[in-house]
């Protein structure tokens, strides 16, 4: 199960939106193989009768009053933007030419 190919790593990098170089893909392929081999031992004890835990201290129904609280101003929200027009974030084209 822990066999990881360079093609798989390239696919994962695409899913994670990281433009890895060919060198990085080669490196990560070897490292991830080793790491996955080590972490696979979880399956030895994770039998069907064990209930999974998502959260260390379970809390249920954490609600607050439905009232408007303190919010960021438009200026604060845009203060760290790489590019804005003063009222909106500016990004490059969402769709490529072929789309």
């Amino acid at each position, binding site marked *: 199960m822990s066999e990881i190919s360079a093609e798989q790593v390239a696919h994962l990098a695409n899913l994670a939106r990281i433009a890895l170089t060919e060198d990085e893909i080669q490196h990560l392929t070897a490292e991830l193989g080793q790491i996955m081999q080590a972490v696979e031992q*979880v399956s030895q004890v994770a039998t069907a009768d064990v209930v999974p835990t998502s959260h260390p*201290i379970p809390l249920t129904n954490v609600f607050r009053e439905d009232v408007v609280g303190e919010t960021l101003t438009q200026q604060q929200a845009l203060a760290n933007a790489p590019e804005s027009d003063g009222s909106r974030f500016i990004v490059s084209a969402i769709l490529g030419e072929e789309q």
Partner: protein
Amino acid sequence: MSELTRLSAADLSAELSAGNVSAVEAAQAHLDRIAAVDGAVHAFLHVNPEVTLAQAAEVDRKRAAGEQLGALAGVPIAVKDVLVTKDMPATSGSKILEGYVSPFDATPVALAKAAGLVPLGKTNMDEFAMGSSTEHSAYGPTHNPWDLDRIPGGSGGGSAAAVAAYEAPLAFGSDTGGSIRQPAHVTGTVGVKPTYGAVSRYGSIALASSLDQVGPVSRTVLDAALLQDVIAGHDPNDSTSLNESWPSMAEAVRGADLTGLKIGVIRELDGDGFQAGVRQRYREALDLLASNGAEIVEVSAPNFQYSIAAYYLIMPAEASSNLAKFDSVRFGLRQAPAGGGTVEQVMAATREAGFGPEVKRRVILGTYALSAGYYDAYYGSAQKVRTLVQQDFANAFEQVDVLVSPTAPTTAFKLGEKLDDPMAMYLNDIATIPANLAGVPGMSLPIGLAPEDGLPVGIQFLAPARQDARLYNVGGALESLLVDRWGGPLLAQAPELAVSTQEGTR
């Protein structure tokens, strides 16, 4: 070195409230110390003396006006760069957030400021808290004040080194798999990971949301307690924050008593994988506890051996999701590929340029663990191990009040020694990870120097969830016995750092 920087937070606070020292003098003494030694230690990523001194002056003004002040008012504190701050940058050790200044303060920082604590600056850390040595910081490693060629631990090596080098009496840390406790172990300082949810995570740049917990870093157990008393409590801005009132941790230290305390030695965390000198000091500490009224029994936690495996599935899975916010749109770096591109291509180029190798490794690993077809086998199984680890804790705490182990397998290793071997680096956290998986509180405090290398060794105490006061009780008692035996604090045995008259490279 100014005597002011040698004082514990508790002693400094007494001098401040007696009027013998002003907050400005206390802040200036620590800023001078930072200027003198941080070129060599590199604990800080950012210091702004003007802001610090203005905040200190404000505390002095309030005191002069007779206002009611908190116990730590006027005491300086170093802030791990994982916590966002509105008057200082917060980078989480990453290039992707270089220069980022938040529009709000993280809740622990806001609480500290409200209590009159004076932030000195932001401390170095592994990028996004991913590491055990600070070598994964995008801004260069921090050096261990005991030996500048060695790691200060991680991810909070900057906070631990700042406190060990007398650059600050207190610091904030964050602990996802040991990032407060392991740095404490290798620097001869105290670090506490409170119960999950005891301290708000609001404004703490998330690594793994179900594991992260902010906590105190200090030179004494009492100082850690005083800080935890300031920052613990419910925060509506963090939906995982526990809504309950906490007893005073400082009172637990002041009334520390080992009589009748049952301490469980974790059989699985005391084997061949632990350095001889670490085991020796650990055995001596257990003997000292036993001869002063504690009952030492052995307990078994058979599923702890699967903790690292589960952790290195859960943590990267949560991290890959949390770090998706660094998309070059709303904040942080933006890097367009040559010739431009679509927003997706800009994202990919930005994340390639802005993330370091360990972050990329974990994001890809997490993406894999969560991907279709593998989710049940990896992430699902890891969550089951989490249940088993919790059951081990529950069984153990039916027999004993607190659990004990060495904090980490070895003393501080050399910078560079494990940088190219991710699995070897991950094993540093073997003793600290179970507490994060189960949400229980843990403390590390110094118990001596390993005979073979003269470097600090820490002991770890663990308590049931919400029973943080038990840690402060047993930790306070052991610390006081050890300081009596040594004739002073362990840090007094650290070599003096060379003092530079000019600012080092930042």
